[in-house]
């Protein structure tokens, strides 16, 4: 959440198709012409892609003012705000999709945030690093140290990721909240979808990231 904000691909003259693979996987789940809120939109790469490639009414929330300013300077509709405190302002069902990409684990109250996501949008798309992936387990079991991986790159004392979970933990939280899982998939280290049945024990062991489409109610 605190990376420097380079302009999105299109602004750098790269084609928009060059967005990160995991963002592409999210974009493919979104129907053209819909209204989307991307929470923790960072440099706005996904918003930019959705607005231009899918004719989406794309809005963003970003906690870093530098990120917000970079987005707005690209012509994107982004406000400075915090997933923990600001989602309550949005009207129920105001969006077709609410996207929370790689941000859930950094919120203070992931349960409340998930509840807000499925309230404000018909569908919530959530991705997060899977703390149950085998090498994380191994590092803790064998090394006895807090895991540091490509998707969890900060040391324990400075990580913004304060609420890490496994895919199975996440599924349980969805059940607790009475949220329906419409689609579940796992991604590899590059953000490419892995052909594993999810949720499931193997997905929880081999998936680097979980990517879920949720909707309110059972």
């Amino acid at each position, binding site marked *: 959440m605190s990376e420097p904000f380079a302009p999105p691909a299109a602004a750098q003259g790269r084609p928009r198709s060059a967005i990160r693979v995991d963002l592409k996987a999210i974009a493919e789940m979104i129907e053209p012409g819909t*209204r989307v809120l991307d929470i923790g939109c960072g440099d706005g790469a996904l918003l930019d892609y959705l607005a231009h490639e899918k004719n989406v*009414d794309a*809005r963003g929330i970003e906690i870093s*003012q530098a990120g*917000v*300013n970079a*987005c*707005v*300077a*690209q*012509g*994107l*509709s*982004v*406000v*400075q*705000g915090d997933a923990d405190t*600001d989602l309550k*302002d*949005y*009207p129920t069902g*105001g*969006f077709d999709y609410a996207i929370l990409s790689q941000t859930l684990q950094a919120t203070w109250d992931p349960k409340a945030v998930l509840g807000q996501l499925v309230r404000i949008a018909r569908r919530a798309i959530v991705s997060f690093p899977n703390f149950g992936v085998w090498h994380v387990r191994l590092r803790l079991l064998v090394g006895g140290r807090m895991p540091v991986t490509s998707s969890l790159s900060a040391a324990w004392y400075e990580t913004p990721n304060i609420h890490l979970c496994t895919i199975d933990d996440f599924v349980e939280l969805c059940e607790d909240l009475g949220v329906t899982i419409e689609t579940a998939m796992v991604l590899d280290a590059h953000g490419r979808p892995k052909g594993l049945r999810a949720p499931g024990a193997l997905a929880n062991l081999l998936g680097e990231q979980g990517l879920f489409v949720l909707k309110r109610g059972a």
Partner: protein
Amino acid sequence: MFRRNLGPLQNEPVIANPRIAAVDTTAPDFPGKRFEIPAEAPLRLDSGVELGPVTVAYQSYGTLNADRSNAVLVCHALTGDQFVAETHPVTGKPGWWETLVGPGKLLDTERYFIVCANVLGGCMGSTGPKDVNPATGKPWGLDFPVITIGDMVKAQARLIDHLGIEKLFCVIGGSMGGMQVLEWVSAYPERVFAAVPVATSYRHSAQNIAFNEVGRQAIMADPDWRDGAYQPAGVMPSRGLAVARMAAHITYLSETALHRKFGRRLQNRAQLSYGFDADFQVESYLRHQGSTFVDRFDANSYLYITRAMDYFDLQAEHGGTLAEAFTGTKTRFCVVSFTSDWLFPTSESRALVHALNAAAANVSFVEIVSDKGHDAFLLDEPEFHSVLGGFLNGAAEHRGLKFR
């Protein structure tokens, strides 16, 4: 909130020379464009009074395109006027927003048709208290009806009708200009494609009403004010108006900016005078601001326009729920605040953004880091300009505006 130039610091006398009238804006050779709202179709003011005929003095730059989709309305602040992008006919200074408006600038007069009108109640050509009341043949003075931000916008809307513009591409303004932007969106939701309220609020705060009241009391305490009827007496409450300006001017800056500009430096002297001359540069600067202001501004206009700001409360007008002001809005918003603005602090913009979110509006919100206080919106602030440029280009793309 007019463009201010530090200029050479002089040791201005505390009492401005009494002047009879700031400017005769009704003189046939006074520059600028005029539109008249006829007496037969008067403005119905929020107070219930019907006002007409009403003159709206305005300036325009650039060309309206064939499908009339490239019009931008710039709304000026308390003491601004319609001369947004050209040398001012009274002060000889550059237009107050020439940093933004002009050929090749962000509000590019080669792309957009840019309109800026002097507000109703103003003193640069639009009907205000210094003009002649047709019923009496004398200047209105305090008989002029109290006007609101809503009334100012109604007058602008009549001008926009007259110019044949159904839907404005953008309405933009800072401070009181930002209040007009919000009023436009709320009163004419179908007529504004994009809105840029800068350094402003959806309602005037208690602190700001208090500052305005200090200014008004300074004017009214001047014996030359004469209950507002100073024109027939051939005098003008210049001293009161200058003090009002000095007090207000402090609120447009920040402590950091004042300290950087002046610190405790002395004015044209090596040591303290042990008297009440302007020993300090900051005093001399304020006196200069006060005394030049009275050359171009009418004291009664100052009373009326500050009152209009005080009355502005978009939340109260919508049953206490600000979001109701924006229900169903399709306008694209770009809300801008500045970190050191203590007149219209970021918290006010944030409350506005929360309401816009609640209305599912398409909104961008940026807080610009600046130590220049409220005035930052008038100054060269590169980050503000880059954000505004991005927003305008994005909005133009959505509006389908094609530029050569």
